[in-house]
């Protein structure tokens, strides 16, 4: 379902003209991935249909949508806010009570892209874990290019504006020429691994918290099932899984139970849910 050469050329010309962004050949996958939610939003059956309609009847609103999707929709720091508040207010206090013996937490940012989510998790833990605790964060992505970017931990001025409070920018980053680099104290707790979520996952020590957000939306139901099953094996029995706001395990994988976490929801493996709150099924 990769974009046709003609569609790619159309989108490239548009973003080059309107946003001075050059999409090198080979970015077809990226363009398609970014435009899937846009096509869905306007009610088109596919990206190809959306682009065909637009080429027949160009309109500024759709143009803007495409440009936004390919430019300003860079991953934000603390994206959506609520999952990070839930982590601070609900999940970490519970895990701190439960892991008093080894005082170490492991978190996974699955499909970590350029690394903002993984480092946002690191900032959250840095600020909220009691003294004497340590943490490890693993980010994973299917793209070697993204893994390299995330490991480099360097972000442009435009990127550090996105959702990152200025107090945290000056505390957890250092200037690197025209860019900002994550400070070593944070970086040493975060690693990245090339991983395809739809293939069998490597054997890894299990995680206390997994952020798997805005990933499942790109998959069909069978693939969603297999990803959720794979991920469950790497989640500790009393661990927490966070999905994107538009995603759920309900109707896809009954092994998970949706639970309230602050003002949002998280998912836990059913046996881990205390009997009083478990639903039937």
């Amino acid at each position, binding site marked *: 379902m990769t974009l046709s050469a003609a569609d790619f050329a159309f989108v490239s010309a548009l973003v080059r003209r309107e946003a001075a962004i050059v999409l090198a050949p080979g970015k077809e996958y990226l363009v398609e991935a970014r435009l899937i939610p846009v096509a869905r939003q306007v009610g088109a059956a596919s990206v190809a249909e959306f682009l065909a309609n637009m080429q027949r009847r160009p309109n500024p609103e759709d143009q803007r949508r495409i440009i*936004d999707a390919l*430019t*300003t*929709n860079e991953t*934000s720091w603390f994206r959506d*806010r*609520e999952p990070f508040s839930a982590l601070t207010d609900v999940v970490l206090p519970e895990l701190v009570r439960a892991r008093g013996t080894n005082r170490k937490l492991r978190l996974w940012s699955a499909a970590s892209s350029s690394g903002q989510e993984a480092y946002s998790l690191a900032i959250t833990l840095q600020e909220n874990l009691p003294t004497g605790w340590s943490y490890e964060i693993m980010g994973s992505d299917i793209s070697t290019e993204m893994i390299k970017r995330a490991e480099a931990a360097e972000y442009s*001025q*435009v990127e*550090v*504006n*996105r*959702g990152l*409070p*200025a*107090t945290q*920018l*000056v505390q957890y*980053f*250092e*200037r690197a020429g025209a860019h900002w680099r994550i400070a070593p104290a944070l970086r040493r707790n975060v690693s990245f691994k090339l991983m395809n979520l739809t293939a069998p996952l490597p054997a890894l020590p299990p995680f206390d918290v997994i952020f798997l957000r805005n990933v499942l939306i790109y998959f069909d139901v069978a693939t969603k099932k297999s990803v959720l099953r794979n991920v469950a094996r790497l989640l500790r029995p009393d661990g927490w899984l966070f999905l994107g706001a538009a995603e759920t395990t309900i109707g896809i994988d009954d092994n998970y139970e949706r639970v309230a976490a602050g003002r949002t929801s998280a998912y836990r493996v059913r046996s881990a849910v205390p009997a009083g709150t478990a639903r039937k099924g």
Partner: protein
Amino acid sequence: MILKRIVAKLNFEAVEAGDGQEALDLLATMTEVPELALIDWNMPNMNGLEFVTKVRAEPRLREMTLVMVTTESEQSQIVRALAAGAHEYVIKPFTEGAMIEKLALLGLVPTGANS
């Protein structure tokens, strides 16, 4: 330009001033203190940092949220602006979405106003 578009999109009522002194003079004539000031660092007569310092020393303006919006991007400058009392700091260039996210962090627009 982008700021005007954002302000219009959010239905904010806005007034403009050419520099810090002009802004202070304007504020002195207003019966209702604005909720938000977007402040460039580099302005003639009174720069953004001096403006922030003056506003912070003025009890009548205590409730106004101060956001620096500037090309000045040295870490030390951000620290100085925050220490002087700026609530947020947005480095130029920025996108519309980034500015709205910052305003959401400050509780000035609902989270998700961006989408």
